[in-house]
């Protein structure tokens, strides 16, 4: 309980209130796009900037956690709020990415069928606000309220275009799994309070749980938050829901909402349970790696650009969870510094993913608006029509592919560094097994590069596969600013990873009692030790630029810059059309070939005598048939069995009453 009002927390609450007011303002003139989109959303972006700034303040060294109790909620359990380093980090994430997304959204939303812009504005800002409250909540009730409000508002945003049946189906699946996850989380809290019956998080922190119950709570948390984060096998909703939503919403969901799940998992496993037996880490690590590989493999065979990105989100979530698992593992053996390294890797990857995944989703949004096409098979050559989007999307592509000197590489570098320390684990077969994790990680990262080349190459490069694409054009300035903001973030965090390390250090310090150094200087990071490993994004960037520049100048000086524009040579074969380019399916082929067991494939092969031969392949997830359909059928059967009770015959009904009476009388005697 705080006597004097905690400044930063109050400021954050004020900003949340501002968001809600903006949302409600949308209802004033729900159908007036100019007002809603061009005024309210940019204002929301400004608020996000304020949020980010406040969070940065809260991450400064020497900041002690701030708490606050609001006279709302249940009589016995008013709303508790708390702003510590961990929550501040995720607030920062929401603020940074939110600013860019809101700016973009200002240009993106327009009147159309489906939900009115004003209502969308309300749902959008409620979504943002609830995410912030999830992170700030300090008691189970407020957390659950914020958590489900988040699910609900995002559900309405997903189903904005509810006239399309697929979108309705996606929304239903999403909310259903979200709800099941929420139930698991509720149970998790129920176990966590450990007899204190304090449903404040403070009480849970103190709660001394018996190991068995601790493990139960951990597993429940893993299920509950894993369902939201999209861990295999609870991932099925993600590739349906994220593409269905309007692009800014997809960006919010992929970039930010998944991170709230990571936050929840961190809270439970590190803050409340304060680490545990080594198999927790092993489990999280294994699940994470499998999810990552799974996501990358499936992303490689997608033919819808937003589905591809959604699967890539699954992959990144997998990477994050493997980092968390590694941290738990180290912590179980008291290797705090290495745990801090792994945890920092995971946290920084959260931040990076928030930036570049939002960037890419927004880029697909612009493409969607410019072409009305989501199918990779009908895109291509847009770099010449939409140079801005193409250029900014290239940054995102390179970043998510984990290439130096951009930010994606930094977190993967840190994660690999953490894997290098696994031989320190004093457990024979573990320290032999875990390096294989590094191998899986490497494979995933390389696959991600493959996927992103496919993504960028098929959409922006090559020749347009449809005539209509020639009308495509760059979006307005608001969109460009939004994209530019996020791209700049990718470059900046890539060049100066020290900043991100400082922020994550502020988190790992309180959680683990250890933090990796934010590098000897701004220019260089050496998380463990200088002679062990060091990396400098800015130097690499400068190096490449320098060499490129020097080469360019030399070539021009010594020789000439003459260029002749001709038709493509293409092995001297002039009869090639745009349709002969590799399609998205074609790009998937090697992966389908190598990772066959992952898929359930239905091929339609043309016969040699077919006059108009066509080749169709349908790839789907084995888990859907293996896991979800059986559950559904089981419930159906039970329902049928139950329906017998209501047979329609009065005599039978009377008999029920009669038997109940007799039974109870016997019971009483």
């Amino acid at each position, binding site marked *: 309980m705080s006597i004097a009002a905690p400044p930063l927390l109050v400021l954050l609450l004020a900003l949340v209130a501002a968001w809600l007011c903006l949302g409600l303002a949308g209802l004033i003139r729900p159908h007036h796009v100019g007002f809603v989109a061009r005024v309210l959303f940019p204002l929301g972006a400004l608020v996000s900037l304020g949020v980010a700034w406040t969070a940065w303040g809260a991450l400064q060294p020497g900041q002690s956690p701030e708490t606050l109790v609001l006279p709302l909620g249940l009589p016995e359990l008013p709303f508790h709020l708390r702003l510590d380093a961990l929550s501040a980090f995720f607030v920062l994430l929401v603020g940074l990415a939110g600013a860019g997304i809101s700016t973009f959204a200002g240009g993106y939303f327009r009147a159309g069928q489906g939900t009115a812009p004003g209502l969308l504005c309300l749902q959008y800002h409620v979504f943002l606000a609830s995410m912030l409250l999830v992170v700030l909540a300090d008691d189970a009730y407020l957390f659950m309220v914020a958590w489900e409000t988040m699910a609900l508002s995002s559900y309405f945003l997903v189903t904005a275009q509810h006239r399309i049946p697929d979108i309705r189906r996606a929304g239903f699946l999403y909310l259903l799994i979200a709800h099941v996850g929420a139930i698991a989380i509720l149970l998790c809290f129920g176990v966590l309070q450990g007899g204190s019956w304090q449903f404040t998080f403070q009480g849970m922190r103190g709660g001394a749980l018996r190991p068995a119950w601790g493990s139960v709570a951990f597993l429940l948390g893993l299920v509950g938050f894993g369902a939201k984060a999209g861990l295999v096998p609870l991932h099925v909703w993600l590739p349906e829901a994220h593409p269905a939503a309007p692009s800014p919403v997809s960006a919010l969901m992929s970039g930010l909402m998944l991170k709230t799940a990571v936050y929840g998992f961190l809270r439970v496993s590190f803050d409340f349970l304060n680490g545990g037996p080594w198999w927790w880490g092993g489990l999280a690590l294994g699940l994470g790696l499998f999810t990552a590989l799974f996501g990358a493999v499936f992303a490689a065979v997608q033919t819808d650009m937003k589905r591809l990105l959604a699967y890539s989100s699954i992959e990144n979530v997998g990477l994050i969870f493997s980092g968390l698992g590694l941290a738990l593992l180290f912590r179980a053996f008291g290797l705090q510094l290495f745990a801090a390294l792994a945890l920092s890797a995971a946290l920084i990857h959260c931040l990076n993913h928030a930036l570049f995944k939002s960037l890419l989703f927004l880029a697909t949004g612009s493409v969607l608006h410019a072409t009305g096409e989501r199918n990779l098979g009908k895109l*291509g*050559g847009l*770099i*010449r029509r939409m140079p801005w989007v193409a250029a900014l999307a290239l940054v995102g592509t*390179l970043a998510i592919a984990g*290439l*130096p000197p951009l930010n994606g590489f930094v977190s993967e570098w840190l994660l*690999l560094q953490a894997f*290098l320390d696994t*031989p320190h684990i004093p457990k024979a077969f573990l320290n*032999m097994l875990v*390096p294989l994790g*590094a*191998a899986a990680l*490497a*494979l995933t990262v*390389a696959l991600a*590069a*493959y996927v992103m*080349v*496919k993504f*960028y*190459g*098929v959409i922006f*490069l*090559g*020749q347009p596969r449809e005539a209509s694409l020639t009308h495509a054009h760059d979006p307005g300035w608001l969109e460009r600013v939004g994209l530019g903001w996020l791209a700049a973030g990718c470059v900046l965090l890539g060049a100066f990873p020290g900043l991100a390390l400082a922020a994550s250090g502020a988190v790992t310090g309180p959680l683990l009692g250890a933090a990796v150094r934010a590098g000897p200087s701004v220019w*260089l990071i050496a998380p463990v030790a200088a*002679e*062990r*490993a*060091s*990396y*400098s994004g800015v*130097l*690499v960037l400068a*190096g*490449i*630029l320098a*060499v*490129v520049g020097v*080469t360019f100048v030399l*070539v021009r000086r010594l*020789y*000439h810059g*003459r*260029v002749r*524009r*001709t*038709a*493509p*040579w*293409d*092995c001297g074969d002039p009869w*090639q059309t*745009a349709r002969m380019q*590799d399609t998205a399916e074609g790009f998937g*082929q*090697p992966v389908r*070939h190598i990772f066959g067991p992952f898929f359930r494939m239905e091929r339609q092969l043309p016969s040699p005598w077919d006059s108009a031969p066509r080749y169709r392949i349908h790839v789907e997830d084995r888990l859907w048939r293996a896991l979800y359909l059986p559950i559904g059928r089981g419930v159906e059967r039970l329902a049928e069995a139950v329906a017998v009770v209501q047979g329609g015959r009065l005599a039978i009904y009377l008999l029920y009453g009669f038997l109940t009476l007799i039974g109870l009388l016997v019971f009483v005697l």
Partner: protein
Amino acid sequence: MSRLALARQLGELLLAVSLAPFLVGWVAQCRAWLQNRTAPPLIQPWRMLRKLFLKDAALAGHASALFRLAPYVLFGTMVLAAAIIPSVATDLPFARAADAIALVGLFATARVFIALAAMDIGTAFGTMGARREMMIGFLAEPALLMVLFNAFLLSGSTALPSVVEHLAAPPFVIYPSLAFAGVAFLMVLLAENARIPIDNPATHLELTMIHEAMVLEYSARHLALVEWASGLKLFNYACLGFALFVPWGMAARGAGTTGLLLAVPALVGKLALAGAGLAVVETLSAKLRIFRAPEFLAMAFLLAVLGLLVHLRLGA
């Protein structure tokens, strides 16, 4: 960093950039000899580059800026890679900015850029080549990383100079794990540098080629840069191999100018041997079907992992 160190760095860079074409030429020469052909002169690649630089560039009409930028980026990343791989001296100031993992990252960057450029024109062969290149990439990269992990675990560092110093430091020890890693590394090298059995640098049969297919649309200075860069790539891989498996003969930290001068011929000697060996391997083996490539690289990957396990068990 001291001015001397900077000079050493630049010198090594120039050495790499100038030696790379010779290495390519040397390998071609050896192959010719082994196949009873009259060999092209050693200088041939240099002549080639000069010719290409003098020509006018012919670009496809709708080629984008990315297409024109890619060769420079490719060249740039390879030069940068050369700057962090100890070839003559271990004391490289720039090596602190990027360790071996970053090196793998740089290779990946180069690969992504060339693949994107290949897709830019939108011809059937270009995209096919890009796809195959990326496939080889995502299979080879983990293997390479695992190979490096062996060295990392041995030396407890991911910075190449300290790896070399640790491995080269007397007393001379035999690391069985490195044997596995060495074979794996060789296979990766073959795959990554468009060599038989994965790819054939000499072929112009469209359906069998990977690297060539990607650069079909390039001409003149752009092609020159691409070729130079691939030469540098081979050079870099060779030096990386030396650094990991035959780290001797390099000028140690703080070694004087004489040390450096001694190190250069050592390097040249190693390169000569390596080139000859490469030629032998290429001559003896036949090109695999593209579908067999995954198996080949999976083998490399497994060998590297085996090396890792051997190390963890035997502690060596």
